[in-house]
């Protein structure tokens, strides 16, 4: 097992390097260049030369990449053009906020999706099944930002409710923090629940058709045991895969949701970077998010081996 994890970690290296090269190359596409972006009309040849030296832009592309990536490995993602503050500590503190939001969203999604998905599979083609499938389809199809805007409108018009304007961290005041996180998490969890529900239904139906379920029933096992211990466990691999993939989508989703609900997470930081053309922030945040996405997928792979010991480590 340990060897398997180490081997999987090693296979990550080329992917992570690939991601960093991709981001670095995309950043080279900036029309004009970064210095023009910073200086604007105040540009003079002297100022330009100074900034180029300062940012290392006077060196060849390959050297620039190695300088950047060796900084990244040491936890140095560069400094913000605007404030001069180090980008990495800011990314870390904001990531904690986004991760909390994503985690609560996941919990919301599981609470909704798993029981409804199982119910829908067990009562296949009944009215309950149809209703659940329509809910799932809506969950998959209604965009986060539309649900979020409609929800804010509904809460304001129907209950006169507005969520707290100032962000409070969990350690500062857990209750207010949860109040702030609740509605964004419901919006994100709701849309994630749609696909998890569909996957739970279809993979459970597939397992229920197999012979070993007949054998379990034939030996007289109660229906609850048949479903939960035998069928659901076997159906859970595709569900776990999907949850892993969804976590990545959730990371992207935080960009929109954090903006709408004014939550100071990593997504909002990235957007600020984009609007202010603060490229170290953009480059750093995207790299960090993509790394997290890849690591979550690795985690999913490792969880597989626990769920299904038949998956070989070799």
């Amino acid at each position: 097992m340990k060897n398997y994890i180490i081997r999987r970690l090693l296979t990550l290296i080329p992917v992570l390097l690939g991601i960093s090269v991709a981001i670095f190359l995309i950043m080279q596409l900036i029309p004009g260049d970064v210095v023009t972006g910073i200086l604007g009309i105040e540009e003079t040849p002297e100022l330009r030369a100074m900034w180029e030296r300062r940012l290392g832009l006077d060196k060849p592309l390959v050297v620039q990449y190695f300088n950047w990536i060796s900084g990244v490995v040491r936890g140095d993602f560069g400094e913000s053009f605007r404030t001069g503050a180090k980008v990495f500590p800011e990314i870390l503190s904001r990531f904690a906020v986004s991760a909390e939001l994503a985690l609560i969203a996941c919990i919301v999604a599981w609470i909704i999706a798993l029981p409804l998905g199982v119910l829908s599979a067990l009562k296949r083609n009944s009215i309950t099944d149809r209703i659940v499938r329509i809910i799932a389809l809506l969950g998959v199809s209604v965009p986060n930002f539309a649900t979020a805007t409609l929800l804010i409108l509904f809460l304001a018009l129907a209950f006169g409710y507005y969520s707290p304007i100032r962000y409070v961290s969990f350690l500062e005041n857990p209750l207010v923090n949860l109040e702030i996180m609740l509605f964004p998490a419901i919006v994100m969890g709701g849309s994630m629940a749609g696909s998890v529900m569909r996957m739970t239904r279809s993979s459970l139906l597939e397992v229920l058709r197999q012979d070993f379920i007949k054998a379990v029933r034939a030996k007289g096992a109660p229906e609850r045991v048949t479903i939960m211990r035998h069928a659901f466990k076997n159906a859970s691999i595709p569900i776990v895969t999907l949850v892993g993939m969804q976590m990545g989508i959730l990371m992207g989703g935080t960009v929109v949701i954090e903006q709408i609900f004014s939550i100071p997470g990593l997504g909002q930081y990235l957007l600020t970077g984009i609007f202010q053309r603060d490229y170290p922030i953009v480059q750093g945040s995207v790299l960090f998010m993509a790394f997290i996405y890849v690591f979550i997928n690795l985690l999913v792979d490792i969880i597989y081996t626990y769920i299904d010991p038949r998956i070989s480590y070799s």
Partner: protein
Amino acid sequence: MSDIKRITKKRKFRKDNTLYLLLRDPLGRAGFMGIALIVLLAIFAPYISNFDVAEIHSKDRLQAPNSTYWFGTDNFGRDIFSRIVYGARVSLIVGIVSVSIAAGIGFILGIISGYFEGRIETTIMMVMDVLFAFPSILLALLIVAVLGTSIVNTMIAIGIVNIPVFTRTVRASVKSIKSLDFVADAKSIGLKDRDILIRHIAPNSLASFIVQATLALSSAILTEATMSFLGLGIRPPEPSWGSMLSESRAFMELAPWMVIFPALFIILTILSFNILGDALRDVLDPKLKL
């Protein structure tokens, strides 16, 4: 006798017809009608809309829906109905162009990497894996952040983001088709690789490709709406449902219609495409039926 023959022949034709099978399914029919509505709005936008999209009626700001302004007016006094109708055009054009970019490049790369093994396949798939490792909206935002916001850059960004999905789908189906007997037969009678690819493998990979294209179209429209909502997609005053929804947030309590109509049309469009995609998958690829 000849009548019976004709009827059975006709029936046989109809049962094999994808469109017939699709429309027989109630969900497929609903999705088809939803998309037809959006397409008609987009095509006939100049005839349907009552006003120019940028026409400002400063005396009629924030008007509730009425007989002149069917969906009400926004904070500048622009007619929301006309903007929704033209917004359909923007959504569809961005969706179709970006999916065409993705599908065209993805199809070629998928066929090549599926058919030729070895270094070409490894290289192509490595690039695809890297692109796939980004959450899609993130990559699109990064590209637009670098290129700048415009309708063309939005289409390029969404196009690039969707390439890996097509490459993977087509490659997988090429690989499975390649192992079938008829390809070996084609090889044995001396057909060149290029002819086998174009004449035999490409047409057989089309089913999964079409399903993917429908789903990609909905995700492209969604990405455009999301980017415009964030202010990084279509630039005002060009009407985009995403940016309309975003602009409405400041006035949502005063003028809820500014929120409701763009939201409804975004939901209707994405829902219709997803339903149609599901139904198409069931018809074209029954093995994948959920």
